Structure formats: C-alpha cells, structure tokens
C-alpha cells in the first residue's frame, strides 16, 4: 500500500509538472530569436521541376529557389519588369522579313547553390569534385529545350511555340527516341544536342542568348519572369533520376535563387534557407535591381512604411530561413496565425466577421497590431456555356444567344459575393481583371447587372416563355456540370440554380469529382460549367486567349472550355497578341470584350479579392496580386515576435486545478467511507 501511494504521488507530480511546463509553441525555443519566416502549406507540391510546376503551392518554392532572368518591381504598379539574372531587359531586333529576335545577356559570375550533382561536371582546381559552377546561357537554352521535351510534360509548351523550330524540335526528339532505344538511354543534354537543338534558341556566347521568333510575341518576355525559363544545370537533371536512393529532380531543385531548399519532407515541412551562393549575397556591391530593396514606389507605399530609408537599397534577402509547415485544415492553421505561430495568413470564412468589420480590421485585431492587405487578384471566375451544345450553344443561333443573355441577367453577383465570399471580390463586367491593360472601371456590361424582368423578356424572345419551349411545349431543361461534390460547393451551385429558376429555367446540377469533370470537358459532354482563371502574367492576352478558337477544348484539348468560335474575335486576338500596348491594341481588346458581351459564351462573375493579415513584426509587406515570389523582400523583428507570442499564449491552468479539486472532493468521501466500513 505505501509503495503504491508513493507511485501515485510521483505520477500526480509528473502530471502537475507537465501541465506547469506546458506550452503551445510548436517550434524549438532556440529558434525564437532567429529571422525565420513561418508559413503553412496544405498539400505538398506535385513537382518542383521548374519546367513543370504550374501551381501556387509549387511556385512558393520554385519561385524562391530558381532565379529568373527577369523579375517584377516589387512596389511599382502597373507591374514593371526589371532585370533579374539578366544584365538588362532583353533587346528586341526586327529583321527585314519582319521576324523578331530577343537578346538576353546573363550576369557573369552567377553560381548555382552548392550541390553534389556538380561532381558530374568534373573537378576543381584543388582536385576535389565540384560543388557548384557558374551559370551560363546554355543552361537557359537547356531549360527551354526541357520545356519543349514531351517527356518532361511541361504544361506551357504552346506558350513558346513562336520560337523558331520549337515544336519541330519536340517532334524530332520524339521520333529519335522512338527510333532508337540507345538514343533514349543517353543523358538528356546529349539527346538535345544530338537532336540538333531548337533553331530559334541561339547561344551567342558564354552569357549571351538570342531567341528568334517566327512572329512578334510581346508576351513572351513575361515568361522569363517565371521559373519555366530559369537556368537549370544539366548535372542536376542527370544526377537526380530517382534511382539508387537518389531523389527525382522534381523533388530536388538546384537553382540560382535567393533561397535553397534545405529540407523537403512532403508530409511534414519544407525549409528554405538563404542561398549563400546567390549573386545578391555574394555581390551586394552590384546593387542589382533584383537583389536590393527598392527605393521607388507610390505614396501609398510610403504611407504604409514600404519605403523606409532603413531598407531602401539594402541587399536582399533579409530572412535567414523560411519554414513551410503542413496544415491540412484551415481552421487550426488560422488559429496558429492568431497565436503568432504563423507570420501571415488569409482569412477563413468562419472567422471573417470577427476579423473584418465594415471592410476594416476589427478593433481587437488592430489592438494586436495586425495589418490587413487587400488586393484584387488578376483572376476571373465565370460560368461558361458549351457553344457546341444545340440548346445553349452557337448551334441554337439567335435563340441560344438570347437564352445565354437571359441566364446572365438572372444572376445577382453582388449577393453571391455577400453570401459566399464575405463580400470579397469585384463584380466582373468583362473578362479582363482590374490592374491589367484594357480594364476599364467605367465599362458596364449590359448583361452583368441583375435584372429579372429583362431576363424573362429575353427568355421569351428566345422562345422559352416562363421556361417552356414554345416549339415542343416541354419545359426547358439544362445540365450544370461541376468539378466538386463538396457540400460547400453544392451550396454555391444551388445559388445559381435558384437564380435561373426565378426566370423559369430548370437547371440540374451534375456534380462529379474534378477528374471526371475534366473528362467531360474533353468529350464536350456538358452544357454549363463553373470555373476560374488566375493570370500567369499581367497582360490581357492571358485572359483573352481563353476564348480563341484554336484552344477549343474538344478539338485541341486547350483552355477554351466553351469551344467558342468567332472569326472576328480570332482575327482581333492574333492581331492584338502581336502588338505592344497602345491605342490600336486597346481598340482591339475593347472590340473583343464587346463580342464576348454580346455572344455570352461566359457569364463573368467576379474577380477574386485577397485579404491577407500580417503580424506587426513582419516588415515590407505588399500583396502582389500574381503568384510571385516576394519572400526576399520581407523582413522580421524576432524579438518583438517572441515578446508578443509569449504574452498571447500564457497557458490558462486554473481550470485544471479546479477540476482536480472537484474530482478529489467527489471521490475522497467515498474512499474514506468505503475503507471505514471495511474496517
């Protein structure tokens, strides 16, 4: 009995000690005072191969690990390109035959971050295997050829189709591989060389690269501000082949960015650390625009402390390490932000009304020093019609057009935003989002304003008074195909169904998972669908191409899900695509917008608006509006963070003591009585 009692006491003491020492801090104490930026991710990127990665989750890593030839100015709007790894913006040359060339020149002395793959490149002067090497123009050419290579599976092949010989190289490479297994076994860079390379990609010297285009393509330069065109060492592609315990190249990036990926645990965390080989770190004296904090910006930037003289012209990056922690559920992730364990966060719908009052931060959040950054994303969410469908599509002629116009007028978009987006979003009147060339705040689409009476009138004119087909006497039935079966998504879809029901159109939701939805799109087996598009780069072409006929989903598997075909639109698109911004281009864009307004292949709904919260210890914050790496511009004050975290997270222990006291008060009399009766 005495032995058991003493063990019980020890156990109780251990419990008390553990509760007294408890903390909700998820990080080791030693990291509290270091410049570590904490953020979350909910799913590991599928690929970190810069030729393949095309989602924001992957871009958060690849954008920081792979340096690009061009970058965007962090503060200037409209978006302005600046040189990155390139010495200057590319020069454009027009030949006598009208063909265009762009010439890039890399900065000399750029290095890849240290990696064992460079042992393949040979030995250094000291006789030891190389750990890094200089970046050369041939590495950019190699990466462009990887984009063309069908085996790599890059999703942006067509974007480079204007480079002379780009698609021909792709075909040639495939034919050579099919003809000779021995060819396929050679290292990829050897295969590319033996396939003759791409005619329009000319390495003019160690640092010089020229792109010869078959026709003018002003948008091409934007792709050089993305990781698709970052220099990639052939050694990394060859060495990281997934064999003999080596990871795949897609899981082991080797780049030239301000950070390198030090830890990659797909189901736990990703850690970026400052790349000591980055030119901004090795050569601060260059004061390169992509490696120093900007000193120019707007009045709003100055007001919001983004032009602090303490930062202007200072070498980047300021952060030593970036920790991405896996958080599958949004609610715990947001709670951790409120506790100070993540440095920035979006706002979850469940907490929106507590955080934002009258479109501004709540007093409670302001008291904590939290700041809100709002920005309209270069995006568009829309409902599309399948123009190949005999009822809602082009085949129905005037009837179909009036039906689409009526259905467009029946949707109250501001109400939708209020109900499902907490008001976050800008009502879309055209397919071009705010901030992009061609957007007009004054433009009102006559079919975007909610008007049930006009909708009913147009429906009757279409031959469906009150939703009844005059020809057959049968009610009009339409199917709405969706790529999500979640309850939340179904509520959103139901909103549209109810809107159309108010004018008498009976629409049925056909919900499937995303893969099945894609299959339907491929087969053209749908009438109406809901989707969205986020810009790759800040140019209207990136939205207008979504309705160009050669991208028709059914015919070419392209992004024109509506299979919209309008000859005038196509002509204008191709003309506009080759133009630099100016009155001619603007006129072409406006005419294309008016065609979409009249034909209604889409019901433009809204441009998404992002609300990002930042803690007071995060400096130089600015919402970018594009998927773009900005970590190198951010700075932290770890001492302030540690102090605030401590004050916000004092554990509340008194409920435990009360619970234990109540338990003891409840049990002890029974125990005492029991033993007394036994005695």
């Amino acid at each position: 009995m005495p032995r058991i009692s003493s063990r019980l006491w020890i156990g109780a003491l251990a419990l008390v000690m553990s509760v007294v020492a408890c903390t909700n801090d998820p990080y080791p104490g030693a990291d509290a005072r270091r410049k570590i930026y904490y953020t979350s991710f909910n799913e590991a990127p599928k690929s970190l191969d810069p030729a393949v990665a095309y989602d924001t989750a992957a871009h958060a890593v690849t954008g920081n690990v792979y340096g690009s030839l061009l970058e965007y100015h962090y503060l200037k709007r409209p978006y302005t390109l600046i040189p990155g790894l390139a010495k200057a913006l590319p020069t454009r040359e027009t030949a006598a035959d009208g063909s265009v060339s762009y010439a890039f020149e890399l900065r000399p002395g750029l290095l890849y971050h240290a990696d064992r793959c460079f042992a393949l490149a040979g030995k250094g002067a000291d006789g030891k295997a190389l750990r890094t090497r200089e970046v050369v123009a041939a590495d950019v050419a190699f990466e462009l050829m990887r984009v063309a290579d069908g085996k790599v599976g890059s999703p942006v092949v067509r974007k480079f189709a204007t480079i002379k010989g780009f698609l021909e190289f792709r075909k040639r490479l495939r034919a050579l591989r099919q003809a000779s297994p021995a060819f396929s076994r050679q290292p990829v860079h050897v295969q590319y060389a033996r396939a003759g390379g791409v005619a329009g990609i000319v390495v003019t010297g160690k640092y010089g690269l020229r792109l010869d285009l078959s026709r003018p393509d002003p948008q091409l330069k934007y792709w050089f501000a993305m990781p698709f065109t970052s220099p990639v060492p052939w050694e990394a592609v060859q060495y990281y082949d997934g064999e003999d315990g080596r990871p795949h190249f897609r899981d082991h990036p080797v780049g030239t960015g301000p950070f390198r990926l030090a830890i990659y645990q797909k189901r736990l965390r990703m850690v970026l650390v400052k790349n000591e080989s980055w030119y901004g770190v090795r050569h601060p004296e260059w004061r390169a625009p992509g490696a120093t904090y900007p000193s120019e910006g707007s009045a709003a930037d100055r007001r919001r402390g983004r032009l602090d003289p303490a930062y202007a012209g200072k070498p980047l990056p300021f952060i030593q390490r970036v920790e991405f922690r896996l958080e599958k559920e949004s609610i715990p992730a947001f709670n951790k932000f409120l506790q100070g364990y993540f440095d920035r966060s979006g706002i979850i719908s469940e907490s929106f009304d507590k955080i934002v009052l009258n479109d501004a931060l709540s007093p409670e959040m302001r008291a904590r020093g939290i700041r809100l950054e709002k920005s309209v994303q270069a995006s568009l969410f829309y409902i599309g019609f399948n123009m190949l469908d005999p009822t809602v599509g082009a085949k129905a002629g005037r009837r179909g057009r009036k039906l689409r116009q009526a259905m467009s007028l029946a949707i109250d978009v501001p109400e939708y935003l209020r109900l499902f987006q907490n008001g976050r979003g800008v009502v879309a009147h055209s397919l071009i989002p705010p901030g992009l060339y061609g957007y007009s705040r004054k433009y009102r689409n006559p079919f975007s304003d909610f008007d049930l009476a006009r909708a009913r009138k147009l429906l009757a004119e279409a031959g469906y008074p009150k939703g009844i087909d005059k020809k057959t006497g049968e009610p009009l039935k339409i199917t709405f195909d969706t790529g999500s079966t979640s309850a939340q998504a179904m509520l959103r879809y139901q909103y549209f169904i109810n809107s159309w029901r108010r004018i008498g159109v009976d629409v049925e939701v056909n919900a499937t998972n995303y893969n099945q939805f894609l299959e339907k799109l491929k087969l053209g087996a749908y009438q109406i669908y809901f989707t969205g598009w986020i810009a790759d780069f800040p140019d209207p072409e990136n939205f207008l191409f979504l309705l160009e006929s050669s991208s028709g989903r059914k015919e070419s598997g392209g992004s024109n899900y509506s299979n919209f075909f309008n000859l005038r639109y196509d002509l204008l698109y191709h003309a506009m695509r080759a133009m630099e911004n100016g009155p001619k281009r603007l006129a072409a864009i406006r005419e294309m917008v008016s065609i979409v307004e009249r034909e209604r292949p889409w019901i433009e709904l809204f441009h998404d608006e992002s609300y990002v919260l930042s803690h007071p210890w995060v400096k130089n914050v600015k919402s970018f509006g594009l998927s773009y790496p900005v970590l190198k511009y951010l700075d932290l004050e770890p001492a302030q963070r540690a102090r605030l975290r401590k004050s916000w997270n004092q554990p509340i222990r008194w409920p435990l003591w009360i619970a234990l006291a109540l338990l003891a008060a409840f049990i002890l009399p029974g125990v005492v009585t029991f033993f007394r009766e036994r005695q």
Partner: protein
Amino acid sequence: MLAYIVRRLAFGFATVLGVLFVLFVLFFAVADPDDMAIRAIGERASPETYAAWKRNHGYDKPLILNPKHGWTSHRRYTETLLVEHYARMLSFRFGRSDSDDTPIWRRIREGAGPSLSLTLPLFVLGLVIGVALSLAVAFFRDTYIDRSVLVVCMLGMSVASLIYIIGGQYLIGKLLRWFPISGFDPDPAVIGRFLAIPILIGVLAEFGGTVRLYRTVFLEEVNRDYVRTARAKGCGEIRVMIRHVLRNALLPIITNVVLAIPFLFIGSILFESFFGIPGLGALTVEAIGGNDFSTLRTIVYIGALLYILGQILTDICYSLADPRVRLGAGASG
C-alpha cells in the same frame, strides 16, 4: 502446439491469397490501368507518356491472359498483371507510388514512425489507465463512485470521436493554450507538445468502452471461489485485486491487446488527419484523395497481413496465459 501454429499459418497464408485476389479485382479490374494513368498524370499527356507511365508502374501487361503468347506457352498465364500482382505483394516489392513515384516502402517507413509515436503511447496509456480504473471501479463496486464512473463511461461512449477532437483542439489548444492545436515535429525537444492533445483525447475517447468492458471482466472474477479463498486466508483487498483478480482476468485483456497491436503500425486515420500527423493513417486518406492506387493497395494489404498475424498471435497467447486452453488438433478450445 507447433502443429497448430503451422496449421494456423497455412490458413493465414490461404487468407492472404484470398485478400490479394480481392485486391486485384478492386484495384485492377474495376479501376483500369489506363484510367489510373489519366488520373496520375492528367488527361493532356501524349500516348507515349501514358505508355511510359504504365510501364514504369508495372501496369503495361494484360490482366489475366497474355494474348501475345500461345495457349500452350506458360508466358500466356505468367506475363499478366494478376501474376505480377501476386509476385510483387508476396515478395514485398511494392513498387512506386502512382501519384509521385516515390518508392512505397520509403513512404511506409517514413509514415510508420509518426504513427507509432502517436499510437504506442496512446495504446499503453489507454491500457494502463483503463485497467487501473476498471480495477478501482471493481474495487469500489456498488458504491456511488462505481455508479458515477459508469454514468461517465456511458456519456463518453455516446459522443463521437470527431467531437472529442474538435472540442479538444478548441478547449486545450485554443482556449487554455496548453499545447499546439495541431502539427507534428519529430524533434525530441518538441514532439511531446504535438502528441499531448491527440493522446489525451484518444485516451478519453476510448476510456468509456475500455472501463466498462474490463470492469465486467473483473467483477466476474471478483465473485469466484478462489478470490473468496484468498480473502479467507487473510489476503488484503488490494493484494487480492492485483495479484489474483487482475492475473486471472488477463485472457480477455490479452485478446483485446494482441488484436490491437498490429494496428498500431497502421496508425489512426482520424487523429492523424485532424492533427496533421504524417503517419500511415493520414497516408491512407491522402492515397484515397490522390488516386494513389499502388499506395492504397499496399496499405490495405499490410493491414490485412497484420490482422491475420494478430489473430494467430492471439490464439498463441491464449494458451500461454491460460493453460486450460488447448490448441492441439483434437482440442475444442
């Protein structure tokens, strides 16, 4: 005993073969390899990319009969997905994940650690607390303590695990700020913080059922003759409970324990998913969501193997714990 073990192992092997056949039907006949390729690499890849993917993942053979070879050739029957599936699974060559090409063994190895770090302490603590409390309740039988604990157990059993998880995260993690709401870090300095809430909630969620079961077992033993004899000999009540009652009530406890042990490796789907613990339970959910058929197939197979193994171990432990249980060929027990 040896003959029995051999016979049980043989039955177990036959069951494994059956399980593999069911897996084959579910994962190959119902979900076509072409469909798997489309789901894994998207619908816009070239035909040769699909072919290469199927070749790399071992899906490039016919299902049951290979028409490339004649009826008399053994290759007509062996160079098929069915035989390949059996050969791979039985030799534990699980291949690569359909979703990200990672070797499945590596994924399982990486997931087993976090799973065990959660399930092992949860299992041990749950068992120790469950047995100790049921013993105490049996000791205080027919008092208000006994009745109160039973009421609490019933209440506890009536609440779904999900409510415990969400409530626990909110109360302990958010309001009281004792431990992190979710997440995981294998660093020994902080791992305890991440596991505290799931373990605490896990013990609470299991507590009702365990205490009720073991209490019944102990009460049955308490009223037996040997207990009365021990008391008559002057043995103290606590000594009677621990040395006699607990020892003799081991059989059903062992059944529960041994059956549960294999599943410790598989992890907890619910806890791992909600707390962001990168174990095998969460891997199962990810494999389902990510159309990762090869990983899912392997986890189901390993689960079945462990279950069969657990059954055999339970039978063997029975005989060790209770000499009255005979497992020979002619035994009825």
